[in-house]
């Protein structure tokens, strides 16, 4: 293409721009093409201007004479082109709407593409982007709370070893947390998230809102998980009950312990742990667990700890412990849940009778034991204790009858009853010998 003179090129460029301005939003591709060609010609003319004039004239002297005039004219043209470029730039939005400039710019030779920057659509920032700082701040706050909860949950599951359920319960939220937190807080994570969002063709101005939404979702799931911990604790407790019934005491202990870590407010687990430690003959540990169960509340089976703890006090001996046992048992008698549990009421009255027997307060002992016998006439402990009370009350005939009843129902698998079986046989043997003589 033969370059036009700069003046002609500028005139054509101006005409094309006027046409653009008139067309406004209803711009045609042809009009755009015309302005591109015109501007390209201007660029060509500018690029060729100094060399052309010098080669055409070839006269150094003339150049010296006209240098000032040429410079002045060149500056005028430059100003004019700049003004026209400004006008073109104002039409850039409409031009970009009318055509896809990326496809067209390859048609232009490289040195003449520079001016195309004029047509780059100005980055229109969405009004939503003005609140990006808010979304980013909110994301960080939400993630901080969620991660704190995650740490709290993970600690409860991981403390003292973990099992398959615990590992799963920790790994899942941790992975989600790392994905969400990494996406929002680390550069690499951010780039990865941007790549994902970009490939999903989600507009850039929504990205911070989406990060914030994901953070909120993560926090919600963590809050949900946190509030589900008591339910998970119940599951652990129930599976521990099964293990206990099957005689797997170590497994039962581990599960009770885990249930307590997940929900320290589930106080009846202390009772169950106490019972388990009693089976393991760790009586001090058992007493500690019963004490917590008794002090903490009366939910679930915690009320059963009253008679268990009282029995341990009685076994410890000493007048002080007997008094503690009596006090505890009287307290247990007032517990509503205990009143509806015959086995517990039996144990409370029996232990009350036992403590009174050891205090040598036989009248009160007899009363408690009789109440126990009335509740469960086919159980041994109250008879065995009643026999001792009757002996203490100097009523040997009635005592012998009670010892016989004790022997009828006692089972040697129970340590207390085994002891009383031995006592009963001893008394009966003495009685038999005295009858023989």
């Amino acid at each position, binding site marked *: 293409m033969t370059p036009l003179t700069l003046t002609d090129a500028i005139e054509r460029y101006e005409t094309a721009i006027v046409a653009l301005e008139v067309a406004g939003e209803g711009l045609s591709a042809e009009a755009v093409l015309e302005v591109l060609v015109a501007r390209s010609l201007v660029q060509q003319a500018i690029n060729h201007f100094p060399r052309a004039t010098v080669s055409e004239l070839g006269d150094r002297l003339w150049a010296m004479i006209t240098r000032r005039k040429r410079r002045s004219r060149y500056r005028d043209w430059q100003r004019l082109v700049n003004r026209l470029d400004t006008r073109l730039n104002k039409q850039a939005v409409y031009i970009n709407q009318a055509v896809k400039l990326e496809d067209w710019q390859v048609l232009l030779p490289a040195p003449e593409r520079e001016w195309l920057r004029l047509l780059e659509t100005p980055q229109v920032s969405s009004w939503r982007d003005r609140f990006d700082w808010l979304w980013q701040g909110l994301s960080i706050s939400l993630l901080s709370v969620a991660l704190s909860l995650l740490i709290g949950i993970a600690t409860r599951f991981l403390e003292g070893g973990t099992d398959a359920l615990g590992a799963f319960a920790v790994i899942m939220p941790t992975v989600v947390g790392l994905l969400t937190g990494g996406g929002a807080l680390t550069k690499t994570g951010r780039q990865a998230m941007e790549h994902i969002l970009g490939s999903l063709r989600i507009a850039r101005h929504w990205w911070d809102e989406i990060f914030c939404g994901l953070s909120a979702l993560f926090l919600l799931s963590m809050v949900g998980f946190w509030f589900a911990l008591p339910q998970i604790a119940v599951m652990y407790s129930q599976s521990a009950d099964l293990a206990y019934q099957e005689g797997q005491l170590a497994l039962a202990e581990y599960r009770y312990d885990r249930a307590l870590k997940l929900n320290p407010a589930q106080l009846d687990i202390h009772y169950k742990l106490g019972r388990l430690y009693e089976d393991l003959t760790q009586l001090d540990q058992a007493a500690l667990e019963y004490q917590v169960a008794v002090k903490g509340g009366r939910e679930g089976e915690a009320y059963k700890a009253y008679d268990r703890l009282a029995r341990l006090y009685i076994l410890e001996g000493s007048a002080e412990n007997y008094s503690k046992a009596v006090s505890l048992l009287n307290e247990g008698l007032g517990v509503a849940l205990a009143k509806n549990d015959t086995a517990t009421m039996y144990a409370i009255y029996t232990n009350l009778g036992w403590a009174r027997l050891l205090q040598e307060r036989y009248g009160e002992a007899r009363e408690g034991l009789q109440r126990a016998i009335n509740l469960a006439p086919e159980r041994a402990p109250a008879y065995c204790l009643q026999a001792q009370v009757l002996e203490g009350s100097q009523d040997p005939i009635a005592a012998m009858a009670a010892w016989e009843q004790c022997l*009828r129902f006692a089972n040697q698998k129970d340590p207390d009853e085994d002891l009383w079986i031995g006592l009963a046989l001893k008394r009966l043997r003495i009685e038999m010998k005295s009858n023989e003589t």
Partner: protein
Amino acid sequence: MKPSVSIPLALALVLMAQTSESQFSPRQPIAEMIRVQGKVEISSQGQSTYRPVKLNERLYHGDLIRVERGSRGVIRCQADATTWTIPADGLPRGVANTCSPPSSR
């Protein structure tokens, strides 16, 4: 009371009695006498007297067995099929001393 009223009432009472009997099943034996040699006696629950025990007799929670010197009595627990030779010293022993009741825990 008219017969037309009393007969259905009696039937209802009989039915109720049978229902309650099936709901609260009679006591389950916890052991069986598998060897009796010499003087071996039993005092069933609720009785104060002793009578000779029979071979293969079912034994219940609350029963007492007494084996005289020179005699021999062996029982077998239902729950775990363990056997127990009752000491031959003339002292009573509860069947429950060794054999656990059906619902011990």
